[in-house]
């Protein structure tokens, strides 16, 4: 159970405070409601590139890291399809430095052509290293492009191609900054041994005078219902052939989210789960298996994936997956399976409430979702998932003509 107070500045900045009396450390999390989902198809990878630029200094503070270190602090950031997140931890006494720095770079970023060019090469290098030169590195590029046709989840955070990053202009960057890096598009959350009133005062002091901006929500095209089986097969320099099958499911706030999360756990949560027990241990078809949901804000994907044992053919592997999906649909989940999954969610939720950094991030995240109370309400949602719902959802989701299958063959295997 996380206690919190919420406050909104006149310019639209949402501020949330959690008082943790035991911690000597405080965490400040600033979330911008902008991710790869807000990008245009011809300018992808932008939200992530911009995150890099946020560390390149402002006119007033040319070196961002130095004042953080002086304040005994540490900071970092990440970008995903839905949002961009900046976080800092420091002793509670020095917390004002975080407000000073974050409010400063929300408006005063000093973007020059040379900084932009330098950051572009860093990001293109990251593209090459993580998406092109890694075994299975391009699987998300391929899978997203197949499963989505119009929704911007069609591309990963890094972007559709390095060319989009190469082509980013100063004007693009400035426009992006002006549009999305505004108080009304951000959520600030603080967790630490600090009175909420003090947090709100500091927020007024440092962010209150900033122009709120008027960020109308982007019109995101919704993905039409898929009506044909899609398939993509490629050969790469990988040690084992990998099969991935994806299905469309509901968004983060839908009942589907909880049911599907439970289903992935029944399939692949640990060595007692169905896929591991039957397909790895008993039938020895796969050397590894996994199942997960993307968990995106808009309707996301339900994924089953596995790497085949040498000599097992793709058809056998795929049919084994389909067989497991049909079992989820036709045979009710046992009480023991469901109880195990609930125990795990409860444990993971409580383990996640142990430190201030996680709490500050979660507060911003649930506020972005538009339902902050959910931060303490999800266990109840999970408890409502029963055998009937699992089977209904499995029957509805797992249809061949709504599936996207990606096969990555090893060089010697096809």
């Amino acid at each position: 159970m996380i206690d919190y107070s919420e406050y909104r500045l006149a310019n639209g900045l949402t501020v949330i405070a959690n008082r943790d009396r035991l911690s000597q450390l405080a965490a400040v999390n600033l979330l911008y409601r902008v991710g790869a989902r807000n990008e245009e198809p011809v300018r992808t990878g932008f939200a992530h590139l911009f995150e890099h630029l946020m560390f390149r200094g402002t006119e007033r503070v040319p070196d961002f890291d130095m004042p953080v270190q002086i304040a005994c602090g540490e900071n970092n950031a990440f970008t995903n399809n839905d949002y961009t997140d900046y976080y800092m931890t420091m002793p509670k006494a020095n917390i004002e430095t975080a407000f000073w720095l974050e409010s400063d770079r929300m408006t005063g970023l000093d973007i020059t052509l040379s900084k932009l060019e330098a950051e572009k090469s860093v990001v293109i290098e990251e593209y090459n290293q993580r998406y092109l030169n890694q075994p299975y590195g391009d699987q998300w590029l391929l899978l997203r492009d197949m499963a989505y046709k119009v929704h911007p989840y069609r591309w990963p955070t890094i972007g559709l191609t390095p060319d989009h990053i190469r082509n980013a202009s100063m004007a693009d960057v400035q426009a992006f900054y002006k549009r999305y890096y505004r108080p009304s598009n951000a959520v600030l959350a603080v967790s630490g041994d600090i009175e909420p009133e003090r947090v709100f005062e500091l927020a007024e002091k440092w962010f209150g005078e900033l122009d709120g901006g008027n960020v109308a929500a982007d019109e995101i095209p919704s993905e039409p219902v898929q009506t044909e089986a899609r398939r993509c097969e490629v050969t790469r320099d990988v040690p084992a052939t990998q099969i991935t099958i994806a299905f469309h499911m509901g968004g983060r706030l839908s009942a589907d989210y909880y049911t599907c999360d439970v289903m992935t756990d029944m399939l692949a949560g640990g060595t007692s789960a169905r896929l591991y027990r039957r397909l790895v241990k008993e039938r020895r078809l796969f050397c590894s298996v996994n199942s997960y949901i993307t968990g995106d804000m808009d309707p996301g994907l339900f994924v089953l994936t596995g790497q085949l044992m040498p000599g097992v053919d793709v058809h056998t592997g795929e049919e084994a997956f389909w067989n497991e999906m049909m079992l989820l649909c036709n045979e009710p989940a046992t009480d023991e399976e469901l109880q195990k999954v609930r125990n795990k969610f409860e444990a993971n939720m409580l383990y996640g409430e142990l430190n201030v950094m996680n709490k500050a991030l979660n507060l911003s995240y649930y506020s972005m979702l538009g339902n902050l109370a959910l931060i303490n309400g999800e266990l109840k949602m999970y408890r409502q998932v029963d055998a009937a719902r699992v089977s209904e959802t499995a029957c509805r989701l797992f249809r061949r003509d709504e599936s996207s299958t990606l096969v990555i063959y090893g060089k010697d295997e096809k």
Partner: protein
Amino acid sequence: MKNSISPDRNVQPAVSIPDRVELPLAEVHNMAGGVKLYCLPAPGYGVVRVSFVFRAGSSWQDVPFCASATANNLAEGSSTMTSQQIAETLDYYGSYFDVSIDRDWSVVTFVCLSKFFGQTMGLAREIVLDPIFPEEELRTYCDKSKQTLTINRMKVDFNARELFSRSIYGAAHPYGVSSPAERYDDLTREDVRRFYASHYTAANCFVVMSGDIDESHIRTVGELLAAMPTGDAGERPAFPEPCSISSAEMPFPDAVQSAIRVGRVMFPRSHPDFIGMQVVASVLGGYFGSRLVRNLREERGYTYGAYSAMVNLDRSGYFAAATEVGARFTEDAVAQILVETERLRNEPVPEEELSLVRNIMVGEVLRILDGPFGVADVTIENIQNGFDNTYISSFVEEVRRITPERILELADRYLAPDALTTVVVGPQQM
């Protein structure tokens, strides 16, 4: 609450290093068999963590790889449960089990929802008190570990670490020794059982519990400890004196980079100069922006990263600077590391730089302490080193107080070039 005066955005708001970082003292309970149970209650979190700490690290083994094989096979089956049953039952309760091992200690940790504490400790009994080390699981473990070690030994960095230990302690010293991967094939179930029986005993153990603790939890742990064999701590024979050589290299013709280690044997954390030398090591290479990073990365572009640190062992300690550089820069990189240690011996650290290092070090301590489990980790380390939790406030106090003169004096005393060992693993012969 609306504030009409604009804040001064041109200067950083005042900062302070916390003048005191205080950790709660653990409540100590004397349990059966003389085992001490240290409790750090943090009510309200709904979770409990228990760590069983044994003097059973790799420096205690007579047979190569025996200590880590013992620790890593504890949960592979008991006289009543298979490894699969143990894993599934832990999974069912959402409980988490982990083993870590270093040269001196083995730590067996359980984390669970407080409402499933009894069930989790039931499994802890199987794992800690009744492991049978099935032959098949042990062989699988040995094959995998041999494979991993073989792959690791294809990397320059891993070899540099091993060669450095051999070069500063001697190849036969418990802290210096490394063994061929083939020795995994010779490791027997009997070796592991013998190591378990002599080291996983009450005489060799302490326990740290944190989180939502109540009396019944303490009783449950007490019952487990009452069933633990008493054992005999005995007197451990003294270690041989370290036998250091001034340089060593290992050719690696195909490598793109060379791994470099420069350092020397020092002393354990209980030595009065340890904390001071930690500050020296931090100035040199303890953070992003340190002297080594500026010299080797930013000015010369030899490397992505360079580090230095003081490492604490139960009966010793060492200082090391480490980096991996493009092969053709090897010779100059070693020279630059020595330029930087010489600079520490000859020029006082500017107050501004030292103050930044102080703040970074104190910030690190606070981050490690974030949350009840962080506090438990630090408590374990303090007990291992013979301290109670007041150690953290004296650490912070000393870091806050340290002067440029003291840094100069320590660097001069300990980092003279002829006292340092240099190790290079890479394509270029020096």
